[in-house]
């Protein structure tokens, strides 16, 4: 597929209409895939394979501002792209979207966490990953180390592609709200303890925010001394909560559930659960809604019906105790 993509890109770039391609290149470790802008001369560095898990759509804000570019987007990335077009953060006409086929992306962290150390090479053989390490060869099933976001895959359709290269697969497994429901079923004390434990790991590196395509503010309230809530480090437990509550709330209705927040988090905090809880609430209370389904949507928190539930519905619903 990489070859097909590169060949097509060569054709497109030859036209001179585009300043470059937003894509990935290989890096040092077997999992390193770094986003970049590629021109005709460095197309040979461009790489597209099972490790290109990151969502490139956000790079278009900076890179498609005053020039036309080509973007390689996976089916899930398209939702983010559409949402940013809706919010006028990306000008649709400046981007030629090539939908690239995706059969689920592999999470290097999961391989490492599975106890496989010193990895020097990985090769794919069907559903099997052969892993070379400093301590011998290992094998692992591909589906066991897919990125979490692939397990709640939104489907194989590219919602914004100008053309599609390669086949995609829906890699979703089971109920994507499973963890949310599990938490909902806990007592408030248990839930509190769960989040306290998770969020206490937060180092406020802002990776979740900076990777998030919905967090595309020119200046985040947490960086703006004039906002009154600016803070840089969690000097108190409260500030750990505050940052993540406000962040989840600010992307409410706009979050496409792309999973970048959890993927980017160096401490493995399941931040996407906060967003997913909101998505679940919105779907249940205000009707099914998928942010980024198409350009120009009005999201549920900028909308209402006369018959909406009262906030006291929170006290009645859910399996919570």
């Amino acid at each position, binding site marked *: 597929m990489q070859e097909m993509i590169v060949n097509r890109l060569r054709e497109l770039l030859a036209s001179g209409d585009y300043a470059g391609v937003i894509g990935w290149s290989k890096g040092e470790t077997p999992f390193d895939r*770094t986003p970049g802008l590629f021109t005709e001369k460095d197309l040979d560095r461009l790489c597209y394979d099972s490790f290109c898990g990151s969502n490139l759509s956000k790079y278009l804000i900076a890179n498609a501002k005053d020039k036309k570019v080509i973007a390689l987007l996976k089916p899930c990335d398209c939702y983010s792209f559409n949402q940013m077009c809706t919010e006028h953060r990306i000008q649709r006409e400046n981007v030629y979207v090539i939908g690239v086929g995706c059969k689920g992306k592999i999470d290097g962290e999961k391989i490492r966490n599975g106890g496989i150390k010193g990895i020097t090479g990985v090769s794919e053989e069907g559903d099997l990953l052969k892993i070379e390490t400093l301590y011998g060869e290992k094998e692992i099933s591909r589906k066991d180390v897919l990125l979490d976001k692939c397990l709640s895959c939104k489907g194989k359709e590219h919602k914004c592609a100008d053309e599609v290269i390669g086949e995609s697969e829906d890699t979703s497994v089971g109920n994507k709200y499973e963890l949310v429901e599990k938490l909902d079923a806990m007592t408030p004390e248990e839930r509190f303890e769960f989040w306290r434990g998770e969020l206490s790991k937060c180092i406020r590196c802002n990776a979740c925010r900076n990777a998030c395509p919905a967090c595309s503010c020119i200046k985040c309230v947490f960086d703006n001394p004039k906002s009154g809530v600016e803070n*840089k480090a969690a000097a108190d437990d409260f500030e750990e909560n505050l940052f993540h509550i406000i962040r989840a709330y600010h992307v409410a209705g706009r979050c496409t559930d792309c999973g970048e927040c959890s993927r980017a988090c160096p401490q493995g905090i399941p931040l996407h659960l906060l967003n997913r809880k909101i998505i679940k609430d919105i779907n249940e209370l205000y009707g099914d809604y998928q942010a980024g389904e198409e350009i120009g949507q009005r999201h549920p928190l900028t909308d209402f019906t006369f018959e909406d539930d009262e906030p006291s519905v929170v006290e009645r619903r859910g399996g919570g105790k």
Partner: protein
Amino acid sequence: MMKKISFQDLPRLFREISETQTLIAPIEKCGQVNFGVWTPDSTLRLDALKTVKSAKGAFFPQVEDIVHFRMKDKTIDIHPAEVLTEDFVIFGVRACDARSFELLDRVFLADPVDPFYAARRKHGTVVTLACNQPEETCFCTNFGIDAADPCGDVTAWMDRDTLYLRANTEKGEALISRLENGEEAPVEDLKKSIGEILKKLPLNDLNLTGFDGDHLMEKFNDPKWEELARGCLGCGTCTFVCPTCQCYDVRDFDAGENGIQRYRCWDSCMFSDFTLMAHGTNRPTQTERFRQRFMHKLVYFPAKNEGLYSCVGCGRCLEKCPQSIHIVNVIKSLGVKEDD
């Protein structure tokens, strides 16, 4: 004198230590291993090679109060925060992190000495641990660090079910003198086997030629920075997991009736507001901020510190950067190529 203790007895030792001083060790919490205060019910993970955050927090915490104010009318009361006065032990520090303390000393113990850091250094005993299984992201060898025999007040080795310890300083001696004597031979064997693996590490021969004060302007003006920085999100992950990054910010928190707390907290030169002033910033683009971080580690710091790099090759940035952009990219991209 080599000492030893069986793993079985380790909890007893830890309990003993923690009775008189704070004991910090790699502890697993919510699926991640980080240095934290050890208590009998914590999950000790001496086997974990890399904690997510480095060990620097033991001496330079992420958030630290420095002074407290109370204001009334036109008057101000100033109450400096107290420096640490109690001893503590940090156990299980790896060679790379142990070297980072020396680098931090160069900053915080330089004139004028930072009192908070100095107090922690004075009261802290560092027990290092040799790396039995280095990983592909490790490249400490490039900086003259020996993962088989780390420095510190005490050096420890894990061999099957026994922990061997060697005191390197008086502080270390005081900590482990209570243990029974151990043999040298198993440790020597272990060092040898570690040495073998270290040789095989894929990143163990980075070419650092040209990263020095003499080539400062050349490196600074290298056109490759822009492409290197293109994918950088401007988050602080690399900075905050890095054992040598020590930039900090000073902030005030108005706690109302409780006065105003001035604290310092880790900061990152990758953040867009790092050098922002009322009338502008001297590094307006992410490329410039990105460049600053690596120039500081690889060029400015050695220029000021006899060629000592501000990188210990721990490889945390390789593992944690969400977009896989890290110092090895920079070294390889900007450095002298083998075929040049």
